[in-house]
């Protein structure tokens, strides 16, 4: 809580400075907030459990950006996320702290942000609802408790370059949290290539929205025997407009990850083993979005995942479904219900239990705004279709 209070004081100071009449340039100030609140009921291997208030994924993000002397733009972002009540990470986790420099065709990020261990997002209530299927798993994370943030966020130097229209090549060297935390050096590197239609141009698009390929290698991963090796994962993704209709919008997305695994892993006893064992995962979502007078009104999505571990002595796999629906009750305010089912066999059954059913009734609020607005987004229609203005 203390960390949070200090942050709030810092925010207040930043805002006060922005309104003073110093001769310095005042940057554009961006604020994004997301409140995710749910009432959870879970049933695992016959035992049920209720959480009255789960506010995981609730976050605040502040950005400051300005034009540099050249045609580049510079940005500083700090974001914090309020974690699970039982998280080992404390009540607040700083998920974004970075500086970024970008222009029309390139983008350089230096700091902590979302790791490049997934290519696309899935329509689930929380970002980590499908983590075991949607993300390359970090073998450097703690073996004991499962903290999604250790998988989702990393410190990095990441460069992206627009190699052709809508085609981004991205490379990163990253530092994931170590367990125990003994080294802040580079322990992962990755490369992705992605064709991505900007959000603003989705109505021009008949079918293809996104197609991506990526690979990531975790460096010097300690093996059970004591030696270390590199752990390589490859991934591919696809997002299609099934029906790009402004009222009844349907899309389909899928991502697959292949984990080469480290040799000698033939059983899963903990989370570390799970990230180091050879595996293939597949995750797909079909989404229906109803829009009313140019605004989202309701959404229903079905997501299904499957993951298999072929190199283990015991036949081990997992599958899961998530079905959710939400209705917008006010600008940025959604109410909804999410049902999830997961099944584990083999070694995973010992780790996570045989199966789990979760039901979550939720209320969410999202809001984004900017002050001292000075320039356009790179992907605005004006910049994309009528000439880019730095």
């Amino acid at each position, binding site marked *: 809580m203390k960390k949070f209070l200090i942050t709030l004081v810092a925010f207040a100071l930043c805002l006060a400075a922005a309104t003073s009449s110093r001769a310095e340039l005042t940057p554009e100030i961006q604020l994004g907030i997301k409140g995710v609140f749910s009432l959870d009921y879970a049933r695992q291997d016959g035992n049920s459990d209720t959480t009255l208030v789960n506010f995981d994924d609730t976050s605040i993000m502040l950005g400051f950006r300005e034009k540099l002397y050249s045609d580049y733009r510079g940005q500083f972002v700090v974001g914090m996320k309020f974690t699970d009540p039982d998280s080992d990470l404390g009540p607040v986790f700083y998920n974004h702290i970075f500086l970024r420099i970008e222009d029309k065709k390139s983008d350089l990020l230096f700091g902590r942000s979302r790791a490049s261990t997934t290519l696309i997002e899935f329509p689930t209530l929380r970002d980590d609802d499908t983590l075991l299927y949607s993300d390359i798993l970090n073998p450097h994370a703690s073996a004991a408790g499962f903290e999604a943030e250790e998988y989702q966020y990393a410190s990095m130097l990441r460069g992206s370059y627009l190699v052709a229209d809508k085609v981004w090549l991205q490379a990163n060297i990253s530092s994931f949290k170590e367990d125990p935390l003994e080294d802040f050096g580079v322990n992962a590197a990755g490369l992705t290539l992605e064709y991505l239609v900007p959000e603003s141009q989705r109505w021009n698009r008949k079918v293809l929205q996104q197609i991506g390929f990526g690979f990531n290698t975790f460096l010097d991963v300690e093996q059970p025997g004591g030696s270390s090796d590199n752990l390589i994962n490859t991934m591919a993704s696809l997002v299609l407009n099934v029906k790009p209709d402004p009222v009844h919008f349907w899309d389909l997305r899928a991502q697959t990850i292949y984990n080469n695994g480290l040799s000698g892993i033939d059983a899963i006893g903990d989370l570390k083993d799970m990230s180091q064992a050879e595996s293939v995962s597949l995750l797909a979502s079909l989404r229906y979005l109803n829009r009313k007078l140019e605004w989202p009104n309701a959404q229903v999505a079905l997501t299904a995942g499957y993951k298999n571990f072929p190199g283990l002595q015991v036949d081990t796999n997992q599958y899961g479904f998530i079905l959710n629906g939400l209705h917008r009750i006010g600008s940025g305010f959604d109410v909804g219900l999410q049902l999830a089912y997961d099944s584990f066999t083999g070694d995973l059954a010992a780790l996570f239990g045989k199966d789990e059913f979760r039901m979550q009734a939720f209320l969410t609020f999202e809001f984004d705004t900017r002050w001292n607005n000075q320039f356009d987004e790179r992907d605005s229609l*004006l910049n994309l279709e009528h000439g880019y203005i730095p």
Partner: protein
Amino acid sequence: MDRREFLALSAAVPGLLLAPKILLAEAAKKANTSRFPRPLEPAIRDGVKEYRLYIAIYQQELVPDFSFHTLAFNDQVPGPEIRVKEGDRVRVYFKNNTELNHTIHWHGLYVPWRMDGVPYVTQMPVMPGQEFIYEFEARPAGTHFYHCHWGTLLHLQAGMYGSLIIEPESDTVAKRFPYDREYTLLYSAHDVNYVRNELDGMLTRMKERMYLMKNGRFDAERFNLFNSVDELKKAVRSGYRPPYTNNMRAQADLPDPNWFTVNGKSYPETPYLYIKTGESIRVRLINAGGESHYLHLHGHDFWLVCDDGLPLEHPRQMNTLHLAPGKTHDIIIEGNNRGIWTFHDHDTRRVTNNGLYPGGNLMVLVYEDLPMEERAVGQMKGMKMEGAGMDLLPKIALDE
């Protein structure tokens, strides 16, 4: 040097370009001709003067290194000048090359009412790709302008305006004040952030609407069209949000102009008014923007000769003129006090570029016959000017 000092250095004051030796250079005079609206040449068919105007998204550079996306007639801000004789029959083919709706309103003209360009009142909007033909007789004589009347708050300040001059059979102004040259000045004020955000928002919404239109699914509710107040009320109860509610719009705030232009340019790119001793010049002032301007000329009293294009029976002398939004005024400046004189909005908030002074609609009246010995700016005792990099001294005089 500590970090603080280093940061303080970045707040440099922009240099100024109003030194006589720069203003009176031939290059400056030549460049100045492009700072006035370009005349549009008509084709004459069956005695009718035919003009072609198109609208497209364009980037207008207000000052070096600062551009914004605009809506421009014939790739010009302001649009080209239409100049006709009183009583001429005029036909304007207006082609919409944008993904937005537009119309043209002929401000101050006695056109047939269905040529007046008010969407849903006198005509349907000219939709993306469509062409509309305006036809009217040029009346009354005087300084007028044309502008878009769709989403006027945005489209007007986004650049959709141009001068329309109707020359009278016999010019009473020229009779009383024989003038040697004339200039057209169109004033505007732009909130470039508002223009950018709203244009982006409208383009986004129009892409979706065009999709529905092509599929024949664009209904009355999406058109924001209702046949009765009851129909509107019913739509509101079932989730329709009228444009006047915040969340329908890309942004809720009203525009707060931060750039002020004359003929689409801000100082130091604003036009110069050249004059010679003994000459008179006629200046046609048009306020195509949404702000009031209080135009003050140094060193002279000018004659106000026309109001909204109509010649005044009793022209009056003044040195500060209130140019309200939508107004046109013609003034005569008599060249009787040689020098270099500023002509600017005396609401000096409009003599800024994005909040920094000087800028905006600051202009100068320049006597071409200024003798060499007067071309050096007032020297200060004990200060060596020549070769000391102080040629740009007038900035002190401008710092009111």
